[in-house]
């Protein structure tokens, strides 16, 4: 397969001379990691149209470098980087970086394919190529972390040794109170776990949920100490057994890790696999999953929460990229010039060779390399990437300004604006809150939006010529501006990300359907499907004149397929049969017509009933379904007695049980009424 091939790995020679990288070396197998350098969603769109997310600068360092540094410092010796969207750029970046030097303690293999559409695809490929030999660390290319996972790793290995490979995955979570800035709302989870073994019993995303349900059976297993926690921040770092890749292959519908976790938990009894969790108190581990997270991770980084991955550490070891660190978290690269009267208030990172004019006021901002900033510029929570020109008298607050953007004089960027690559704005214009400007026309996108599997990755549209025809709107981007507005709306307190999401809804594979939150208890779902199947079976039986024993056989196999109890089979069968005329002819049947249609059917299916309805309890079940049916169809009460009589005559129901049902206390007014109904009474007396 052309698309799937291309394992362009590059192995470096000789790790022989390296010494001591922690306890991992005691194991015969070197620790491996799978790094997914694609997000498979479009949270950062349209910025990611020009640059893959893993290469977006965070504190002037590409995100993937943080992830690789994290992996290396935990003792990972072999990393497989899977790229899809703009794989060549990622590859180029990695080949130039220190990770691909022959002396790197962590051998990086780059595997690219256009075919990956989700995490599931990547792991299936891991399995297909049998890349992993033992436990591996699974991370995304946008995870920033300094968590020490060696303890979790040890626990994981210990569990696997003890329990014969039952535990397939250990997720790393960090304690962090709800509503904390570093928590991503989309990833808010509620977790029920066994406090002794740290086994996850229930895992649930809580975004947009009003109500939570826990299946009771999770509390019946194992030990008697449980924790239900909402104060956990998912670091998106998981230690996986090789089985994880196999399980992804076996279950080709698993797209995300969330699918996987839920699949494992639901099928725990069948497959016997378990997932554990490691909760860490210290350390930092966050996935930069949207622009809001980008903001909070950047500011945490500058405030040194991710020590030792601080901006001045220059861990990527690039020449001339070192910076000095001084009080109030101000970092300056080499060759920075600061004009007279300019102030760097606090938490400011300025890249190399950037010059800043006079009387500027900068706080809580990150400025990239080779930028020029004019006089009287006010930057607050601004993220300015490389080679940006900002003229004088500009105000930018809480916005992202990408590479090579030009902001002309007198421009004001209100909160949560995004200026994607190469945009020109101004002069003298104020962009309202939440404006996203890109050189790509939004229409280009809409053409492709139909494709639901579109991720960051899809090819750039073919509608180039169309775009070129459209002129830039000077009212939107200023007289000399270049770029198209993607979305301009006033947001109350919602984020950038929110709006980017609304803009491009195709959050691909992960089905954020409404049914997602409340896990539909599998039974109710199955019952419904079973009912449909029974209906179909009977219908076919009628059309093709299938013998009753074959019908029974079919229903029996359905019963096992959907794990339906006998009681439910009887009730469903009854209700399906009683509904049958309505199904066929529509609900406006008169009682007389109904009876006329139903009676021959009953006669035909009597053997089926007789096969199931045997014991007294079965009769009662059948009758309760009967009652339920007519409670809903109160206009057909006249028909009821005839049907009942017929069923009696066909020996589906017995006299005693009908009497017993009749005399049994009715629970609701309506059912009492039903019993009082003239017809039934007469029927009763007739019996």
């Amino acid at each position, binding site marked *: 397969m052309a698309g799937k091939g291309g394992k362009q790995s590059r192995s470096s*020679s*000789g790790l022989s*001379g*390296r*010494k*001591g*990288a*922690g306890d991992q070396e005691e194991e015969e197998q070197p620790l491996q990691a799978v790094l997914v350098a694609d997000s498979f969603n479009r949270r950062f769109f349209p910025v990611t149209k020009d640059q893959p997310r893993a290469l977006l600068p965070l504190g002037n360092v590409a995100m993937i470098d943080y992830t690789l540094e994290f992996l*290396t*410092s935990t003792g990972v010796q072999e990393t497989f980087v899977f790229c899809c969207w703009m794989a060549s750029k990622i590859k180029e970046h990695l080949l130039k970086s220190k990770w691909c*030097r*022959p*002396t*790197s*303690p962590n051998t990086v293999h780059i595997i690219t394919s256009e075919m990956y559409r989700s995490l599931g695809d990547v792991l299936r490929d891991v399995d297909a190529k049998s890349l992993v030999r033992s436990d591996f660390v699974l991370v995304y290319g946008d995870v920033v972390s*300094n968590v*020490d996972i060696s303890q979790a790793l040890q626990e994981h290995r210990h569990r696997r040794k003890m329990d014969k490979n039952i535990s397939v995955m250990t997720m790393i979570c960090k*304690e*962090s*109170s709800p509503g*904390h*800035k*570093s928590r991503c709302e989309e990833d808010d989870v509620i977790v029920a776990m066994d406090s002794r073994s740290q086994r996850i019993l229930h895992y649930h995303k809580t975004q947009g949920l009003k109500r939570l349900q826990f299946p009771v059976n999770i509390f019946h297993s194992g030990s008697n100490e449980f924790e239900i926690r909402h104060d956990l921040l998912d670091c998106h770092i998981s230690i996986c057994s090789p089985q994880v890749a196999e399980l992804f292959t076996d279950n080709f519908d698993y797209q995300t890790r969330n699918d996987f976790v839920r699949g494992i938990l639901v099928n725990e009894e069948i497959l016997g696999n378990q997932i554990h969790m490691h909760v860490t*108190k*210290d*350390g*930092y581990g966050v996935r930069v999953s949207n622009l809001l997270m980008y903001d*909070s991770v950047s500011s*945490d980084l500058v*405030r*040194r*929460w991710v*020590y*030792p991955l601080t901006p*001045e*550490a*220059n*861990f990527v*070891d690039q020449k001339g990229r*070192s910076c*000095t*660190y*001084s*009080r109030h*978290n101000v970092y300056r690269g080499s060759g920075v010039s600061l004009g007279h009267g300019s102030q760097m208030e*606090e*938490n400011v990172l300025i890249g190399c060779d950037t010059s800043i004019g006079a009387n500027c006021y900068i706080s809580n901002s990150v400025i990239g390399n080779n930028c020029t900033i004019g006089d009287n510029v006010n930057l607050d929570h601004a993220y300015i990437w490389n080679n940006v020109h900002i003229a004088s008298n500009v105000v930018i607050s809480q916005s992202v300004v990408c590479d090579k953007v030009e902001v002309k004089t007198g421009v004001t960027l209100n909160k949560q604006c995004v200026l994607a690559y190469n945009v020109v704005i101004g002069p003298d214009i104020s962009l309202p809150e939440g404006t996203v400007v890109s050189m790509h026309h939004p229409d280009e996108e809409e053409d492709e939006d139909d494709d639901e599997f579109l991720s960051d990755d899809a090819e750039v549209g073919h509608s180039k010529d169309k775009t070129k025809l459209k002129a830039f709107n000077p009212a939107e981007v200023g007289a000399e501006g270049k770029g198209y507005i993607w979305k301009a709306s006033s947001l109350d307190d919602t984020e950038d990300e929110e709006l980017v999401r609304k803009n491009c809804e195709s959050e691909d594979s992960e089905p954020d359907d409404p049914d997602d939150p409340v896990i539909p208890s599998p039974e109710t779902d199955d019952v419904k499907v079973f009912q449909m199947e029974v209906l179909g079976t009977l219908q076919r039986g009628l059309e093709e004149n299938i013998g009753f024993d074959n019908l029974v056989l079919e229903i029996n196999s359905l019963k096992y397929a959907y794990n339906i109890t006998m009681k439910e089979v009887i009730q469903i069968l009854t209700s399906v049969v009683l509904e049958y005329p309505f199904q066929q002819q529509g609900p406006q049947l008169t009682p007389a017509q109904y009876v006329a249609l139903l009676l021959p059917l009953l006669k035909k299916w009597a053997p089926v009933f007789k096969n199931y309805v045997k014991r007294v309890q079965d009769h009662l079940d059948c009758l309760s379904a009967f009652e339920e049916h007519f409670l809903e169809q109160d206009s057909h009460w006249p028909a009821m007695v005839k049907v009942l009589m017929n069923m009696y005559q066909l020996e589906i129901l017995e006299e005693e049980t009908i009497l017993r049902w009749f005399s049994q206390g009715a629970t609701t007014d309506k059912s009492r009424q039903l019993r009082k109904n003239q017809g039934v009474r007469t029927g009763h007396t007739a019996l």
Partner: protein
Amino acid sequence: MPGPDKETDLTERIEAFLFDLNRGGSGAGPLRGSAETARETTALLRRITAQARWSSAGDLMEIIRNEGRRMTAAQPSETTVGNMIRRVLKIIREEYARSRGSSEEADQQESLHKLLTSGGVSDENFRQPFAALKPNVIEAINELLTELEGTTDNIAMQALEHIHSNEVIMTIGRSRTVEAFLKDAARKRKFHVIVAECAPFCQGHEMATSLSKAGIETTVITDAAIFAVMSRVNKVIIGTQTVLANGGLRAVNGTHTLALAAKHHSTPLIVCAPMFKLSPQVRRLSFLSDFYRYCEILSKVNVHCPVFDYVPPELITLFISNIGGHAPSYIYRLMSELYHPEDHEL
């Protein structure tokens, strides 16, 4: 071909060392304590001298300077690395000068007269090749290594001159040198040690446990109690992270408080510092370097957690180094003996 093999082996070692240095800051790395870092650095420099390709002293210095820059950048808070690089550079200069036959003294004289007459920074180009240079330099580096091995013992040996019977000694945090110093004194004398715990990392607790195991009467106090207790203390003995060129200290957080309290009570403050901690740097603003590993991450609060204090030289009574005791005002002289002025900036 042995040549390229050697080269890769060397670069591999350098990379591994850089990696360790990088991780050293998190406390997870294998390098613990500055003495070990100093030894590792020197051993690596010896290896570079032995294995790298160079024909003249100038080449070698350039190589070492380049690698040195990377090493210092890998862990900016650890000054020992830079110090050892400067020491080795100085050794190369000396050996070169000796090979040329010029007197060592003349080269390092730094008089006003010389400054005025010589014009340029240095007319030396170090280009002349000498066959004997390599073994000589390696020999000198070996000597340096031996010196490094013995530093802690040399300092500890002087303990009896400074600690007398029934004295009350105060110290702060944990310093291996001070620990060895006190333990050495405890073999002959009986005295009481008060340890300030040095929050938030509380290395003082470890120190106190270790001292009491050695049979020294030890009390742990909180940092807030330093001033209150100071009136009973006879001597303050502390370690330091770096000795600066002006005779000041860059020492663990809380030391400045301690030094001020000692000054107020006119208690002598003795600093145990091996020579390799002597750095040609003067005070820089960036004395903050922090580990936020132990606290909850807060979103709306700026937390500053400085790890090092600057202690001005006037608060310090005496330095005890492996070559004897010195007053802070004498540090400049040691500096010019150990490092060449041109190497101050790598």
